[in-house]
């Protein structure tokens, strides 16, 4: 079996990365997972977090994503993320943006808790918490966003 597979990181606006890799570690909604060549075909949704890509030469690259989903097959992994940034490009400003969006979303759904149902509110709260965890993980301050918690 081949020891590498094709990894694509695609955002709605463009293809961000397309490289052969040995493994990809993904923050799935139901828990982290690692995809390696020969993985069973799976579709997984993601929570905000870091995606670690181990290249063909063993080098590791990390990307911060804000949710989305992954299509895994035996010889390829396609990650469809609404926003994806290489870790080095994750500045406080970019992160503030993401935080602001997550907070606004939570406020919006909490405002209409009755019509959308408890599940949606829980999901939004969880999204925000994941987003905070992501920031802490890469060493950024979650409390600098202009939208108050």
């Amino acid at each position, binding site marked *: 079996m081949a020891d590498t597979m094709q990894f*694509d990181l*695609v955002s709605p*606006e463009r*293809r961000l990365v397309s490289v052969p890799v040995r493994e990809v570690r993904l923050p799935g*909604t*139901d828990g982290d997972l690692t995809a390696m060549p020969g993985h069973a075909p*799976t*579709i997984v949704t993601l929570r905000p977090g870091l995606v670690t890509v181990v290249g063909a030469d063993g080098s590791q690259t990390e990307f911060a994503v804000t949710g989305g*989903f992954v299509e895994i097959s035996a010889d390829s992994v396609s990650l469809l993320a*609404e926003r994806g940034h290489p870790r080095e490009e994750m500045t406080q400003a970019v992160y503030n943006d993401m935080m602001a969006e997550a907070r606004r979303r939570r406020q919006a759904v909490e405002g209409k808790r009755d019509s959308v149902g408890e599940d949606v509110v829980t999901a939004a709260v969880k999204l925000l918490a994941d987003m905070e965890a992501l920031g802490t993980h890469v060493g950024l301050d979650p409390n600098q966003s202009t939208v108050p918690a």
Partner: protein
Amino acid sequence: MPSLKDLKNRIGSVKNTRKITKAMQMVAAAKLRRAQDAAEAARPYADRMAAVMAGLTANAAGSASAPRLLAGTGADRKHLLVVMTSERGLAGGFNSTIVKLARQHADRLRGEGKEVAIMTVGKKGREQLKREYGSLFVNHVDMSEVKRVGYDNARAIADDVLDRFEAGDFDVATIFYNRFESVISQVPTARQIIPAEMPEGEAAGGASALYDYEPGEEAILADLLPRSVATQIFAALLENAASEQGARMTAMDNATRNAGEMIDRLTTEYNRSRQAAITKELIEIISGAEAL
């Protein structure tokens, strides 16, 4: 008969017009390239999304618990038309073809006794629809500040549409935009986005059986459907942007050519009347000399 001076002025002004239309054509050509590149770059995401959606919807469509975004509200009474046009004119028939299609659609629906609401994106469509359908407008998205269409723009529109859907404002949503076929051909297109249209049979069945889903298929579907709406709107916005530049380029190319023809005609006329004047003067001199 215009005087020589008038003709000369006229030629000068048409020449200026030609310079402007030529410049606009070149600007449109440059922007078209960028718009096409953007549309091209967005394709991988949309394609993958469509493929995954096809697999999921094929399975979920039959079940009674299918989400409302997919199965619809069960009614077909209230329609939302999202009409996407440009912010600027001088693009040939670009805006009017979309508006015409939307108008036909709206009239047909109203003829069938259904409620119609209209949401406009871009100023030009709003202006054209205002007189007849002004009372049906529910929202307008101003794109005049937007230099380059981004996913965030599409998301904002999608969120608004989805909010209205959740609130029960409409049962069916259709977007109107110009599909980019080529520089000289843009096809006004109506596309239903809510409830999601079923993809054609063949691709659907096979794909889904192969995949494991985590979390379950329904949870993924619930997560993906709103994203898919945003992706479709984004794709439409990009196609529209490319079409707009294509239409403008063609329109300005025609205008430049027409101006050139007009200049030729006016120049011929100018030369004729100049020569006529000279001939007249000569005749006057000669007949004056003969009279002596």
